[in-house]
C-alpha cells in the first residue's frame, strides 16, 4: 500500500479520483446498503422499520406471492406485484421501441443537414432538457386534457363532437414517456449515424442492393451501437419511471415506480418498497448484462 503511493503518478491519480469516489461511496453506495438492509427487516408500525430490527425474507416473498402478505384478503391475486412488474417491462419496451422508431429517422435527417443546421436542430432536440421535467409533463397534460388544447382544437374544427379520452390511461402514460425520453434515444443514435460513411450506401447500391436492403445489411448493423445505447438509456429509466405514470395515468396505470413510491409514501411500508427496488435493480442489471454479452464488443463501447 505504501509502495503504491511512492510513485508520483499514482499519488496524482489517487488525488484526482478520491473526491468523486468518496462522493459515490457516501451518497450512493452507502444509501444503497441502507436500502438493502431495510429490505431484510420487518416494517415499523408507523413507517420506518421495527426497532430493534427483526430480520426476515417476507418482503421478497411477498413480491413474488402477493398472498403471503398479512393484509391479503380472501380473493388475493398472488401475481399482483409480478403483474405490475410485467406491465412496467411491457410499457418500457413499447416506449423504447417508439423512441427508436421515431428517433432513428430524426437523427438520420439531422445528420444529413448542413453543419450549421445540424447544430441548430440538435439544440432543438436538447432544449426540452432545460425545462423542468415536471413542468414539461404538466404542459403535455394541458394539451391532452378533456378541456385541453387538442380536444378544443378538434371540437372547434368539428372533427369530433365529444372530447376524446386522452388522459389517465396507458396511452397518455406511453405518450408522456416517449415525449420525455426521446432525446435520450436521439443523442446516441445521432452520434453513431453522424460517424457513418455514406459512401458505403453508394457501394451497396452499386453492388445491386435496393435502398431498403442496403439499410438492413449495411447502415443498421453499422449504427447498431447507437441503437443499443439508446435502448439502454431509454428502457432502464422508463421501467422505473414514477412521475409520468403518476401524472399522466392519474393513478390508473400502475408501474413498478409508482408502486415503490407508494410503499415509501402512503403505504408506509419501507421494507417492502426497498425489496421491490432491489428486485427491479437486479432484473434490469441481469437484462442489461445479458444484452451486452450477446451484443459483443461494439455495443459495450457505445455506452
Amino acid at each position, binding site marked *: 500500500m505504501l509502495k503504491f503511493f511512492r510513485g508520483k503518478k499514482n499519488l496524482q491519480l489517487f488525488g484526482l479520483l478520491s473526491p468523486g469516489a468518496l462522493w459515490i461511496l457516501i451518497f450512493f453506495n452507502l444509501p444503497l446498503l441502507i436500502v438493502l438492509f431495510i429490505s431484510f427487516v420487518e416494517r415499523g408500525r408507523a413507517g420506518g422499520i421495527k426497532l430493534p430490527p427483526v430480520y426476515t425474507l417476507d418482503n421478497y416473498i411477498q413480491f413474488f406471492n402477493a398472498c403471503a402478505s398479512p393484509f391479503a384478503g380472501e380473493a388475493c391475486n398472488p401475481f399482483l406485484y409480478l403483474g405490475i412488474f410485467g406491465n412496467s417491462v411491457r410499457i418500457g419496451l413499447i416506449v423504447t421501441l417508439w423512441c427508436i422508431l421515431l428517433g432513428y429517422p430524426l437523427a438520420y435527417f439531422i445528420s444529413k443537414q448542413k453543419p450549421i443546421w445540424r447544430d441548430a436542430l440538435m439544440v432543438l432536440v436538447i432544449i426540452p432538457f432545460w425545462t423542468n421535467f415536471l413542468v414539461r409533463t404538466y404542459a403535455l397534460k394541458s394539451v391532452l386534457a378533456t378541456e385541453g388544447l387538442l380536444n378544443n382544437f378538434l371540437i372547434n374544427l368539428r372533427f369530433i363532437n365529444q372530447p376524446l379520452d386522452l388522459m389517465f390511461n396507458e396511452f397518455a402514460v406511453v405518450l408522456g414517456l416517449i415525449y420525455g425520453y426521446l432525446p435520450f434515444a436521439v443523442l446516441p443514435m445521432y452520434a453513431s449515424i453522424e460517424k457513418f460513411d455514406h*459512401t458505403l450506401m453508394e457501394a*451497396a*447500391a452499386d*453492388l*445491386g*442492393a435496393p*435502398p431498403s436492403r442496403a439499410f438492413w445489411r449495411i447502415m443498421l448493423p*453499422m449504427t447498431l451501437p447507437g441503437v443499443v445505447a439508446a435502448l439502454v438509456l431509454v428502457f432502464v429509466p422508463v421501467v422505473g419511471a414514477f412521475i409520468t405514470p403518476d401524472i399522466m395515468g392519474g393513478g390508473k396505470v400502475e408501474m413498478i415506480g409508482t408502486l415503490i413510491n407508494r410503499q415509501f409514501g402512503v403505504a408506509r411500508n419501507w421494507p417492502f418498497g426497498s425489496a421491490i427496488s432491489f428486485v427491479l435493480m437486479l432484473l434490469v442489471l441481469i437484462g442489461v448484462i445479458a444484452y451486452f454479452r450477446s451484443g459483443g464488443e461494439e455495443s459495450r463501447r457505445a455506452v
Partner: protein
Amino acid sequence: MASVFAVEMQDVLKQFITPEGGVLAAVNRVTMQIKDGEFFSLLGPSGCGKTTSLRMIAGFELPTDGKILIHGRDMSQVSAFQRPVNTVFQQYALFPHMTVEQNIAFGLEMKGVPRAERSRRVSEALEMVRLPGMEMRKPKQLSGGQQQRIALARALVNKPEVLLLDEPLGALDLKLRKEMQLELKTLQREVGITFIYVTHDQEEALTMSDRIAVMSKGLALQIGVPEEIYERPATKFVADFIGETNFLDGVVKGQNGSTVEIDLTGTGIIFVESSRKFTNGQQVSVAVRPEKLSLNSEIQGGNNLRGHIEEVIYIGTDTHYGVRFPGGQKARVREQNITLAQKSIAKTGDEVTMSFTRTSSRILTQ
C-alpha cells in the same frame, strides 16, 4: 450492332447550386463515346468534372440535362442499383463489419446467386487479384494495397458490363501504385471488361489507357489515344497538363503552304509545319516539349535560337537546362545523359543555340 458503344454520354450537363447560391456546371455539355473493351481514362485536375461524370454513369448523380447510354440503353430511368456497372471507390468503401468473403459475395447475394456458386466465385475472384485464402479476414486487418485488390474483386466478381474506377490507386504509395498500374492493365486485358478510369495523374493515364479524355472546368478538351494527346495537344491546357511543355508566344508573319512563319517577339523567327490555316498578325503559342529541344547542335533547315543558360539541373537520367532568350521568354531543354563521363553541354551564363525541327512543335491558339 457495331455502332453501339459501351458507354455514351450525349450532351451531358450537370449543374450544382454553390453555397453562395450561384449555379456551377460541374460537367458542361460533354459528349463522349467509350468503346467496348476499352481502357478509357478521364484525366484532369480536381474539380474538372471527371468524378462527377463517373458518378453519373454509376447512377449516384443524375444529369441536369443530356443522356447517358450503356450499351445503347438509356439510363435516365435506371437507378444505381439496377445498372450493369460496378465501381471501385477511391477509399475502397469496403463494408467494415463484414469479412472479405461477405464483401465480395455481396453483389452476388443481391442478384440471388446460390450460396455454393457464390463461394466458388469469391475464391476465383480472390485468385484473380492474387489474394487467395483471405476470405475470413476483416477489411481492417488488410493493408491499403490489399484492400484495393479486395475492392477490385468485389466489383469484378459481378462481371459488370463496365467497371468504373475512381482514382483507385490514389491512396497507395508510389512503388505499389506503379505495380498496380501494370496489374490493372493486365487484368483488364484478361477479363475484357470496359474500364473507365478517373485519375489526375497524367503519367498513370498515359501508361494504362487505350484512350484518354482530358477534362478541365467541366469540358472534355480532347479525347484521343495517348500518343495523340501527348504529341498533338488541342489546347494550351492539354499541352501543359500532360507532361512538360515550353510555350513560346509569338505572332504569325506569314504562311507558305504548310509552313508557318512566326515571330517570337525579340527571340527570333521560327518556321513550324502545320496543316491548319493561320492569318497574318494572329497571336499564337508554339508548344514544344523539352525532350524535343537540343543545345549547341544546330539543325539544318530547323529552328535555331540564341539564348543564354540560366540554370542547370542534374536529375540523373537527364540534365535540364533553363534557357533565357533576349526577348525575355524562357524554355526548358532536356538532354539525356547518354555516356558515363557526361560533361555538361553548358554551364550557367553560357551563350547557347537551342534547336528544334520544324515538325516537332505545335501551334496553339487557345
